[in-house]
């Protein structure tokens, strides 16, 4: 009995039972299309969320700060600031990874008052390095995965802060609270804070741009200034944390481990996927993972049950045929081989059809340019599906594995009967 004979018999059986083949095939096609579209949505969401967490939300791939600074800095900034000496240690350490690091940037935040036009508003001030900030917003990864997650005004803010060492960028809601309109861009403003010595820290700057944070809570209070200006306000040379941006995100765990070992217990090293450091990204991904697992189980379960059902019917109706084949010399293993090949041909064809159908659906949906505004984005984003072929291949393997197992189970059970039982079986 040759393999060629088994393939031939399998193909002829599929053609012979056209209706059942079509019904089973369609079940697999729809199930697989569902899985592919789900994976396309999740892949796009993951890449966009990850990219925006690293670059847009300034979490960086790796963040270095004083131990416990994450929770303690807002209340006791003076105790948890990275001093000039500590910054030098960190820079010296980063020099060891210079081929893997694209750039690094320092950040310093605080609270205060923004005073302008005789009005004042409480604000959260973020001091950052303007050139690096511009690099983050215009990074190729941002352009590829989250181009519409940044408002144009934020990019303008970055450009303006590069030019003016005392430039101030505020949000539109803050501008409304202070009765500022766009024509007041360039107007003087004063920022008031408490320095690390407990004195009144006052600095004068100019409103250079309006930016948006994408988070409602911050829209009424966010101010961005160049880092040296923030340091001047707080009377410090220190920074809150150093963000490290890598050439390859895959290097994150190894570099983070090395930094922890070299810098010692006095520092906390956070990665972009740490829940404490990047709660929005991690929280969103956990939600997507749960949703994905649920849907995969549901879809695979439905497809598998459908396969078990049709294969069982298939075997039951062909019991006498199986008995005849056994009577003329086909061993139980040979019958199993035929059914395996039938399933393989059917599922392969269905998966290919499903993939092509999914591609058409993806192209159609992407062309519709559906816009929505998820939390954390600065403007409307397009609902995009992006097929990732590794995910598609994994889904295909899963479907194939489930259906082959279903076939194995059903056929082996029937095969265990004696030839005479198979021949006289009424098919019930």
């Amino acid at each position: 009995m040759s393999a060629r004979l088994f393939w031939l018999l399998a193909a002829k059986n599929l053609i012979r039972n056209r209706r059942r083949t079509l019904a089973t095939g369609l079940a697999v096609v729809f199930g697989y299309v569902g899985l592919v579209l789900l994976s396309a949505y999740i892949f796009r969401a993951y890449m966009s969320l990850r990219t925006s967490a690293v670059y847009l939300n300034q979490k960086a791939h790796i963040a270095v700060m004083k131990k416990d600074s994450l929770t303690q800095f807002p209340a006791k900034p003076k105790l948890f600031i990275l001093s000039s000496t500590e910054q030098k240690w960190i820079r010296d350490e980063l020099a060891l990874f210079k081929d893997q690091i694209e750039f690094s940037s320092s950040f310093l935040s605080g609270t205060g008052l923004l005073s302008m036009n005789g009005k004042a508003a409480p604000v959260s001030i973020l001091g950052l390095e303007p050139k690096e900030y511009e690099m983050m917003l215009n990074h190729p990864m941002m352009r590829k995965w989250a181009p519409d997650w940044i408002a144009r005004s934020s990019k303008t803010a970055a450009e303006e802060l590069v030019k003016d060492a005392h430039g101030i960028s505020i949000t539109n809601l803050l501008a409304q609270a202070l009765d500022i309109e766009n024509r007041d861009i360039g107007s003087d403003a004063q920022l008031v804070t408490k320095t690390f010595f407990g004195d009144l820290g006052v600095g004068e700057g100019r409103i250079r741009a309006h930016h948006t944070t994408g988070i409602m809570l911050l829209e009424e209070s966010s101010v961005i200034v160049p880092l040296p200006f923030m340091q001047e306000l707080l009377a410090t040379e220190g920074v809150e944390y150093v963000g490290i941006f890598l050439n390859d995100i895959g290097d994150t765990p190894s570099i983070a481990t090395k930094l922890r070992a070299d810098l010692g217990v006095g520092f906390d090293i956070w990665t972009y996927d740490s829940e404490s450091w990047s709660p929005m990204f991690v929280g969103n991904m956990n939600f997507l993972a749960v949703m994905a697992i649920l849907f995969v189980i549901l879809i695979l379960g439905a497809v598998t049950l459908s396969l078990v059902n049709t294969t069982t019917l298939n075997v039951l109706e062909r019991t006498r045929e199986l008995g005849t084949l056994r009577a003329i010399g086909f061993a139980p293993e040979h019958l199993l081989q035929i059914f395996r090949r039938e399933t393989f041909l059917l599922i392969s064809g269905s998966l290919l059809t499903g993939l092509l159908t999914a591609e058409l659906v993806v192209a159609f949906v992407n062309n519709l340019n559906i816009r929505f505004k998820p939390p954390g984005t600065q403007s409307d984003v397009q609902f995009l599906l992006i097929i990732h072929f590794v995910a598609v291949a994994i889904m295909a393997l899963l479907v194939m594995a489930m259906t082959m197992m279903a076939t194995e189970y059903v056929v082996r059970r029937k095969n265990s009967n004696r030839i005479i039982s198979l021949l006289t079986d009424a098919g019930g």
Partner: protein
Amino acid sequence: MRKMMVLVVFAFTQVSFADFASELLQASDFGRGGFKKGVSWKSKVVSVEDGETNEREFNVRSLDHDAYVEALSPARSRGEIYIFNDRNMWFYKPSLRKPLAISPRQKLSGQAANGDIASTHYARDYGAVLERTENLKGEKVHVLLLTAKSNNLTYDQIRYWIVDRTKLAIKAEFLTLQGKAFKIGEMEYQNQIKIDGKVVPFVSRLTVVDAQFPENKSIIEYTAPTLVDLPSSLFNVNNLSR
């Protein structure tokens, strides 16, 4: 008729008490620089907060309700100026193009607020009610409850202990709107100043303690109070702009 008489006597008593409280308050302002002539003194503020100590020195010049406060030390604060103009307060330093409006409630150093370093005009700014009379440190004291007449003052409410004999305030509880003490102050009057031929006591020390965390405190020491001629232009905030 009798009821009417009782009501009239009662109302008169209340008015009398209110007048008495106001007069006490006005007299107590004298001991803390609240007089119409120009006066200058030096203030040293030593604050202890969370185990850390820091010191600041100021030169204060006051005329009636206005005050001009210049920071003398530490070196990083030299040149900073606080101006009290009526009930408004301004901050200026040489690097600023124009002065900044600030609140007297804002923290200056430790437990001392911006409004604590200038002279005190509680009689103008607060309504006074006599709560009780008691003994404190062997002296008969009147306890007044002061309520702010406007909301841009340093404190909303103050419970004020004024010695009957000297008419000087020796203790203050600074209260929240809900009437809970969040800071407690104690005053000493070892200084003297001559006004209109009369030598009057002048505050020498104000100790302000956090009511919840008594280890956190600020001590303001007043030295060299002197009568001086001060031009009103000194307190004009427009003269500060570059």
